[in-house]
């Protein structure tokens, strides 16, 4: 138990930085090589649709398994036991929505962004503006949560204490700059390769640690659980639900947002455009489901393993708190070297996810707002990509600034909020426009803006922001909504608003030609964007 006394000063800083630097150098070389074939808008946004289903599936796992799901879930299981596991199940089951209802139809219908699909048979400018707004909001929340998470990680891995805000800020800025380099140099192709490399490292790292931990208990999972129960002050409660989520309705609300949010996350949707056909899009999701599922099974072992071998009390006291469970377990198992490796993977995770978010947000701004709303479709692909690159630079700077400001704040609720907005503003609109004939422009606007507004209002007046011990703004209390997760209200409201809006706008002329084109195209792939250079 020497860890307890040293208070998180574990591992060697030089080694951690060294391994991370090797990762950055390696990926930069790959990104640079990938960039040499970047010529067209399709190359920049969709990697020329040249990735195979399996490659894209690995990249999707890389994009999806953020620091929140790797460090956060392992840590939540270590400290709260079963409730952390519940979280991971929502994240996995959610992929069935993407597989059955969204991925292939979206791939066949759209070109680069979510707005392409939503505006297909609607009035272009208002719907694209709405789609871009919700894309930017979701990406922004997700981005800030990732960058703020980097702060806690830095405290643990580079031994820059929370008191040294300047030092932590410099590291956040470096992380942001490397990310900007990936996106500007490599575009979607480079970003995808970073995600593939990171996903492979993450899954292999988790695999090795899982069997290492299980080996210590003679490959007996029950014995491992026994070890965790023995070490935890919570005892047997670790094996059943109820330690983390005290408010039942709030937990159900979170569960619904997790399961319906994934298929509405713009950076995940955009990944389906990087493959040549709908069949490859399907294959991507299948790969992603298996990889993500197996990975969460690993985190179940790692979480209870960290509880058994490190101990929940040591974890919660370490800098980085709950997030430090996996790194501390790595140190316990394999000393400095394994800690260095896992730390590098954790940093790589933040880099890859942030890069994916940045390219998505910049694509949505350039393709939906600039090219179609501002220029009314009268622009060249070259000009559009230039705008996308500039936007990526601005988003990168905003991410760095936001990450520095949010560092040390309790912004964990931002990830849940991003899922809630995705499930409320995006998913109903996507499903309606794919499956409901009479859905119209007004319906799309009501469900996007309505879902977005309801989510934001409820979260601002929720205990996550004020009026509770864990609130973002301590000492203030303007909360009147009792739940931290708005999903249980905002998702049904948004589905309903889509119907009401459609009814209100029923006098809009029904565009039967566009509807026929969209439906035939979505189901058969006829006329969909091809792998060849298209712009």
């Amino acid at each position: 138990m020497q860890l307890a006394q040293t208070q998180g000063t574990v591992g060697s800083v030089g080694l951690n930085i060294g391994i991370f630097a090797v990762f950055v150098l390696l990926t930069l070389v790959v990104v640079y090589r990938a960039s040499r074939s970047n010529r067209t808008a399709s190359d920049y946004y969709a990697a020329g649709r040249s990735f195979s289903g399996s490659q894209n599936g690995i990249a999707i796992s890389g994009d999806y398994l953020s620091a929140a799901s790797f460090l956060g879930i392992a840590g939540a299981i270590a400290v709260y036991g079963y409730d952390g596991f519940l979280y991971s199940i929502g994240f996995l089951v959610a992929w069935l929505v993407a597989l059955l209802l969204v991925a292939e139809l979206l791939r066949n219908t759209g070109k680069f962004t979510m707005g392409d699909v939503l505006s297909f048979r609607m009035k272009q400018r208002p719907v694209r503006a709405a789609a871009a707004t919700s894309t930017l909001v979701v990406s922004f929340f997700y981005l800030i949560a990732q960058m703020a998470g980097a702060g806690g990680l830095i405290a643990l891995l580079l031994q820059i204490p929370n008191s040294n805000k300047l030092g932590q800020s410099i590291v956040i800025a470096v992380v942001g700059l490397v990310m900007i380099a990936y996106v500007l140099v490599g575009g979607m192709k480079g970003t995808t390769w970073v995600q593939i490399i990171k996903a492979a490292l993450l899954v292999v790292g988790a695999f090795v640690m899982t069997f290492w931990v299980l080996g210590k208990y003679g490959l007996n999972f029950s014995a491992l659980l026994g070890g965790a129960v023995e070490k935890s002050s919570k005892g047997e409660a670790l094996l059943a639900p109820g330690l983390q989520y005290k408010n039942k309705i709030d937990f159900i609300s979170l569960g619904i947002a997790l399961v319906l949010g994934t298929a509405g996350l713009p950076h995940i949707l955009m990944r389906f455009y990087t493959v040549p056909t709908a069949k490859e899009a399907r294959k991507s999701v299948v790969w992603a489901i298996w990889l993500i599922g197996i990975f969460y099974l690993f985190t179940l072992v790692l979480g209870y393993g960290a509880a058994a071998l490190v101990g929940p009390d040591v974890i919660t006291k370490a800098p980085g708190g709950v997030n430090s469970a996996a790194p501390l377990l790595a140190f316990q198992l394999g000393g400095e070297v394994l800690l260095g490796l896992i730390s590098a993977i954790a940093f790589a995770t933040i880099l890859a996810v942030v890069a994916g978010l940045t390219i998505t947000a910049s694509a949505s701004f350039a393709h939906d707002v600039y090219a179609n709303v501002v220029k009314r479709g009268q622009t060249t692909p070259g000009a559009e990509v230039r705008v996308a690159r500039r936007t990526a630079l601005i988003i990168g700077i905003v991410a760095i600034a936001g990450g520095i400001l949010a560092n040390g704040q309790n912004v964990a609720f931002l990830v849940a909020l991003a899922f809630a907005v995705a499930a409320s503003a995006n998913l109903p609109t996507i499903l309606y426009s794919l499956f409901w004939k009479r859905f119209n422009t007004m319906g799309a606007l009501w469900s996007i803006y309505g879902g977005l507004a309801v989510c934001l209002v409820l979260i601002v007046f929720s205990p996550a922001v004020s009026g509770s011990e864990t609130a973002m703004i301590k000492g203030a209390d303007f909360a009147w909504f009792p739940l931290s997760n708005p999903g249980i209200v905002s998702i049904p409201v948004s589905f309903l608003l889509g119907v009401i809006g459609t009814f209100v706008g029923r006098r809009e002329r029904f565009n039967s030609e566009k509807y026929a084109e969209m439906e035939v195209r979505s189901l058969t792939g006829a006329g969909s964007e091809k792998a060849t250079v298209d712009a």
Partner: protein
Amino acid sequence: MSTTGERSAGGTIYQQVQASPEFGDLRRRLRRFVFPMSALFLIWYLVYVLLASYAPDFMAIRLSGNFTVGLLIGLLQFVSTFLITTLYVRFADRTLDPAAERIRHEIEGEA
């Protein structure tokens, strides 16, 4: 690639295809699979979340050693997800893809 502008007696090529029995059959098969399956897994997930919220004592029952009912049902969510994935892929490969491909060739041959 767009053929929306080309009008013939029965509207655009897409409108003709959309009205064809072959396309209607493809749409019906797709929907008949994905809608019930989506309802099924969403309900099964909701049951799980409700059990975790309202029946923690049931979830804490030990089955063997330290392995609880909650862990079993949780792992069954993984199994059902993998199973539905496999079933859908088999269905799509065998039923949807050939039909979709036939229709696509018809359209693109004409375009």
